[in-house]
């Protein structure tokens, strides 16, 4: 196991553990900041999966956008909301009610893990599995992505931009303290 793989597994561990803590902790603000750690570690995982542009996008969008937005939403809202975010220590009863959810989540994980175990990458008959070969560490993914975005995926790209505009307008409309807020 070379240092790169080691770092990768460490990052994977950080992802899983920090995600668990995010879900289980009672202090919401800390959980949101921990969410940042999870996302950062995930970005590292993407890098190790040779998706450096996705990783940087992950950081710039999630860390610079989503996370800041969440924190900002908390802090902009009033004191009661801030208090309500500090959840009381989970009561035993609530832990009791969480057990079915835990069982179901664990069951889903089991199913997914088992289905992963027997995974075989198989090409359809008459076609090779990797026609263009696998991605290498030295490839300029930005170049490839740029070409693909402007050729094969131009329509999804434009749709996504329109969708973003809609979301922007919608969020701005919902969030403003308009007189006509019903």
């Amino acid at each position, binding site marked *: 196991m070379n240092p790169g793989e080691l770092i990768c597994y460490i990052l994977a561990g950080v992802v899983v553990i920090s995600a668990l803590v995010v879900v289980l902790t009672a202090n919401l603000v800390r959980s949101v900041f921990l969410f940042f750690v999870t996302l950062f570690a995930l970005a590292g995982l993407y890098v190790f999966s040779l998706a450096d542009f996705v990783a940087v996008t992950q950081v710039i969008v999630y860390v610079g956008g989503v996370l800041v937005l969440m924190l900002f939403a908390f802090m902009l809202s009033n004191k009661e909301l801030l208090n309500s975010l500090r959840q009381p220590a989970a009561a035993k009863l609530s832990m009791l009610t969480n057990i*079915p*959810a835990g069982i*179901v989540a664990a*069951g*889903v994980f089991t*199913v997914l893990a*088992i*289905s992963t175990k027997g995974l075989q990458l198989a090409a359809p008959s008459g076609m090779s599995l990797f026609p263009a070969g696998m991605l290498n560490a030295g490839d300029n993914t930005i170049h490839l992505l740029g070409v693909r975005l402007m050729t094969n995926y131009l329509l999804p790209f434009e749709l996504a931009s329109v969708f973003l505009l809609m979301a922007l307008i919608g969020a701005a409309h919902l969030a403003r303290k308009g007189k006509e807020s019903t």
Partner: protein
Amino acid sequence: MLACGAAVIPLLGAIATYTFSKRNRGSGIAIAGSVLTFVLSALVFYTTWDHTAIHRQISWFTIGDLTFTAGVLLNNLSVLMLFLISGISLLVHIYSAAYMKLDPRLPVYWTCLGLFCFSMMALVVADSLLLIYLFWELVGFSSYLLIGFWNTRQAAVLANKKAFIINRIGDIGFLAGIMVLFSQYHTLDLVTLFSDHGLVASSPRIGGVWVGATGQLSQAWLTIAGAVFFFGAMAKSAQFPLHTWLPDAMEGPTPVSSLIHAATMVAAGVFLLVRVFPLFDQTVLLLIASIGTFTAFMAATIALAQHDIKKILAWSTISQLGYMIAAIGMGSPESAMFHLATHAFFKCLLFLSAGAVIHELQHHYAKSGDTTDPQDIRNMGGLRKKMPVTFIVMTIAALALAGFPGTSGFLSKDAVLVSAFGWGAAEQNVFSVIPYLLFVTSLLTAFYVARLIFKVFFGPAGQEELHEAPAPMRWPMIVLALCCLFPLFSVNPVSFESAWIMAGFYLNAVEAGAYHTYVPVLVSLGGTAAVFFAWFCYGRNRSGNIFTDKGMLYRFALNGWYFDKLYLAVFVKPVVLLSRILFGFDKKVVDGLVNAVGSLGLSLSAVSRWTDRYLVDAAVNGLGSISKTIGNFTRNFQNGRVQYYLLATVAGVLLFFMFTYFL
């Protein structure tokens, strides 16, 4: 069509005055309307009088296979009435414009007056008993409005109520008559019924059975029909049992009294009787003659004792109406109509003159703050010098009323009296007294009218600032005074046969007899004597020495023979008592019964409620609670919590995958 126009214009005028009364308060419109009406009526009169009757009608409505018609019948009778009414109403309109000038509700007055003229004219030109009945009611209603015009006065309100109620009583008679005729002939058309060869004239009475065109009835029904028609006319024309409303109706404005209660409305009864004259059999005619005569005599005696100037004239009107009714009863409707025409003029003039006097005195008293009754003749005197025109015209009218030669009253009264004596000669029994009674009445008439004149215009002058009435009041009086003289009616001042109105109704010729000569002479002489007697009593200011205020007879007359009190005791109080008894009966017995039924129902429903609650409801509630329990149980699956839903969904998917992988 002109007649229709003439009849409808007052209605339009009424509506117009009511609508456009802002400027000059409607007087202009009202007077213009009545001028137009008069012109149209005169045209109609000119084209129709002594020509063949005009009868136009349209189909009105149909019940079953009976078609009711509505239309206009113009014969001598109706055009004469039309002309008379429009002429007098024109003069009264002009007079009113001055008399009512200061009244705040003048537009309403014009409206009511217009409505009245319309209904009266429509009444006389209508060709069907049903239409006549309609307008008859309308006349009653508009007179109700006019009598109670000064509706803030208690007396006026009581008077118009009284007039209305008594007219209602008479209307029942009219309606009953219409019903009898309709059931007998199945038509109400005047021409079909009452023309010379109409249904009534051609219905034979054979052996106590009245044979009509479509059926037959007992002859008693014929008598009843006539009697009830007369009963209707009785109320309208203020005859003996139903006469009490007319004196009270003097509470209305004087021009109204003049128009309604002297010249037109009360003439409606006479008009009706003339219209249905062929219907009357001997019994009814005798009844009519008796009632008319009695009314004439009674009213004259009452008029002797009155103090109120308008009351005197009112009783006098009743008396003169009695003459007319009696003339009809004695089979001489033409003289009744003649007297109606002449009486309309001089009685109208008398009222207008009285109105002028009252008007001036009222102004005088109002100015000096005096509360003296301006209508009481005891407070008057010496007005001859202050109001010469009024004095002259009123004297002419009074002479006409008294029946002095040279006046129209002489002609018509003679016509009535001569026919009465002619009729009386044929009668054998107690009814032969009727002509003599009428004659005595004539003398009484001369006496009371002379009393009125002497009291008002002679004697010491009381009030200094009095002067003549204004021109719009004066001129109609002068015109009417001219109409009270003989030339308008006859070229011969002493022969009523030469009067054109008499000539216009050749119903049956008056037999010329000895009466024809001496009756007029006797009337004139007796009248003169009565006037002198009156001068002796009142003119020389020696009143009271013969007719003291304490005399029983005097009080009897003053109170109108105590008819009002009698009616109060005989009709009103028993009715009130009866209604009290009935009320008590209603309260105790009827209500008690109803309440008993109600409480029975309550107890029954209590039983059913118990059943409902503990048997039916229990079953329903049981079902309900079962479903509620089930619902409560299943509700947990539908609690609105998205997370539970999602958990359940994922658990389901998970189970599915479990099955696919492990089973």
